[in-house]
């Protein structure tokens, strides 16, 4: 189903759309206030973007440097070219440890690789330990936002979900009660876990360590209690040196939630005594995206979600309407590279307002890439016949002043004289909820000719 159709369904419940929009706008305003407090915010963005551009231009060298330093720290490093390989590597580590229970901190990469269903099929219990992630996991839904995975759910809906799965009492969506019950439930899972899986926010080439940012401390809790830690990262997560963290940690939290810094920025540089640490470095289409000059900068993304919070379309269509692991503006420029056919409607789910590019902490020119994907999609994917015919004809008409004049006059004649039912019908999507412009006078060309004749 196209984005527009899913968004239309989401819009059937206007009160919920309003609530979703307001909740995300609140986060966007928090981000603005927080960024205003940083002197030289725009310079910081420039710096972040520059470091990322350097990383992408020298990715091979930084990855090899990272691997060699990680190995020196006793970390096992694995390489996966795609999602299947990634999942198989995770499984092989679990088999080695005879692990049946896994706790996972939030990781969009494991979502992208569909790790949970893969492991569940093998009889392994995988528990997402980020509260929002756990909520959507219980609801058997994918996250609808990369930082606020359950933002599409009200606290009342969470209440019902917890009653059903965790045996809680009805509380009319009391957040304190629900959080405390979730905490008890998760604590039990942490204590029994064999292996902890985490994502990676930053992988530092010159130390061979990784940094994971959470607000709940769930990554730390999982890693410290389990006997093995598997950290899964995309190849673009590299930063050259530890000192660069100062740039990215400041940008990430403020852009994501308006916090000065995430509650936990945990550094994992080696395994604890008697335990094991693994890092899986995953490509899964990233090299291909890197090869597309116009779209390369999409790999700067540090997954803060700011473009989603600011996007007026995302706020009113919900994350699930994008049907891709990463929704919103950034997802709309990443997804066509993965599957042009499946995601061909996403670059059109934008008015090209440009707010996404303005908030992006690493200055990805998102709206310009959306425009460029549209050109690619129209060339490479079959287009709706009517849309294509209209636009192709418009191209010819607009190149010939005589034809344009005729078309303009005809349209004005129709608007002025045709009966309502001929103008407002099923084919006229504009007229469903909006009136068409009223035609009263001459067009400007006619007015101008008359004026010059009279004058």
């Amino acid at each position, binding site marked *: 189903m196209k984005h527009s159709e899913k968004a239309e369904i989401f819009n059937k419940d206007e009160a919920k759309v309003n609530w979703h929009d307001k909740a995300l706008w609140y986060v966007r305003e928090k981000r603005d206030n927080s960024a205003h407090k940083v002197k030289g915010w725009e310079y910081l963005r420039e710096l972040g973007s520059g470091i990322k551009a350097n990383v992408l231009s020298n990715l091979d060298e930084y990855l090899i440097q990272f691997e060699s330093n990680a190995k020196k720290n006793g970390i096992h490093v694995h390489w996966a070219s795609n999602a299947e390989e990634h999942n198989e590597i995770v499984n092989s580590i679990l088999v080695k440890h005879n692990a049946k229970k896994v706790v996972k901190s939030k990781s969009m990469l494991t979502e992208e690789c569909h790790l949970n269903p893969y492991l569940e099929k093998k009889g392994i219990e995988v528990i997402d330990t980020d509260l929002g992630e756990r909520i959507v996991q219980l609801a058997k839904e994918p996250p609808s936002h990369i930082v606020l995975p359950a933002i599409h759910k009200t606290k009342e809906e969470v209440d019902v979900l917890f009653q059903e799965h965790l045996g809680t009492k009805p509380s009319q969506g009391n957040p304190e009660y629900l959080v405390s019950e979730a905490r008890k439930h998760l604590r039990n899972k942490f204590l029994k876990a064999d292996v902890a899986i985490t994502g990676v926010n930053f992988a530092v080439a010159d130390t061979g360590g990784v940094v994971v940012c959470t607000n709940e401390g769930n990554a730390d809790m999982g890693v410290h209690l389990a006997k093995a830690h598997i950290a899964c990262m995309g190849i673009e997560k590299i930063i050259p040196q530890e000192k660069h963290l100062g740039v990215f940690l400041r940008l990430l939290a403020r852009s994501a939630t308006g916090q000065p810094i995430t509650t936990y920025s945990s550094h994992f540089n080696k395994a604890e005594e008697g335990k094991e640490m693994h890092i899986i470095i995953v490509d899964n289409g990233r090299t291909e995206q890197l090869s597309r000059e116009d779209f390369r900068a999409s790999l700067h993304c540090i997954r803060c979600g700011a473009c989603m919070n600011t996007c007026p379309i995302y706020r009113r269509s919900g994350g699930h309407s994008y049907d891709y692991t990463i929704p919103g503006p950034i997802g709309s420029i990443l997804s066509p590279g993965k599957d042009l056919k499946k995601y061909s409607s996403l670059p059109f*789910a934008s008015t090209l307002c440009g707010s996404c590019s303005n908030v992006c902490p690493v200055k990805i020119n998102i709206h310009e890439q959306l425009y460029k994907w549209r050109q690619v999609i*129209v060339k490479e994917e079959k287009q709706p016949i009517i849309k294509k015919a209209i636009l192709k004809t418009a191209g010819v008409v607009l190149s010939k*002043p005589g034809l344009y004049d005729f078309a303009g006059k005809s349209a004005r004649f129709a608007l002025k004289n045709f009966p309502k039912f001929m103008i407002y019908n099923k084919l006229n999507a*504009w007229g469903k909820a909006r009136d068409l412009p009223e035609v009263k006078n001459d067009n400007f060309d006619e007015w*101008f000719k008359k004026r010059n004749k009279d004058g």
Partner: protein
Amino acid sequence: MKVGLFIPCYVNQLYPQVAIATLELLEKLNVDVYYPQGQTCCGQPLGNSGYEEDSKGACSLFVENFKEYDYIVGPSGSCIYHVKHHFDILEQTPEVIRVRNNAYELCEFLVKILDVKDLGASFPHKVGLHKSCHGLRGLKLGSCSEMMGPHFSTEEDLLNKVKGLKLMSLSRKDECCGFGGTFSVFEEAISVKMGKDRVQDHLDSDVEVITGADHSCLMHLEGLINRNKQPLKVMHIAEILNSSL
């Protein structure tokens, strides 16, 4: 200084009063203004829909029509943005480069080139300014709420000098209205919802007249206002700046 007046296709056909106000405004400021006959469209509807290749004819015609002028001025931020940013599909001849460099949105031209401060206009109403995205974020006609830096606004500067005009403060100062060209048709539900929300912000802020530098956004908002019989009027900023001059 020879100025070529560019009137966007839909303004020419549907909102001649906007074009007339623009022309009169420039003439009253003693600008040597010409209206090249045979102009059509900047090609934006095609480019934004992915049919950039098919817009080459319209773009070349635009260059042909406007190549001899020192400045090209039009009452539409998004069309001017398109000329400046997307005419790279044409071969970059000196003429094409000249046209792209010299194209100006009306308010920008008044403030930056003519250095106009007070137009002597009078418009005693409560006005809400819709800052259209392509003008705001594309042409940088003003500061955006998501960027850090000093506040500025070309349109506000001009409106604040209009006698009797009270510029109302909106709760979301620069949110997109949801028009977006063909987006308004192919993403109809979201487009309408965004427009409704924009209109509501103006109503909540006690606005009588919504104005802006891009009539396409105003066309979308007006369509909703008329359908829902809401107590709001829509006028292009040229019409306000040209009133009782």
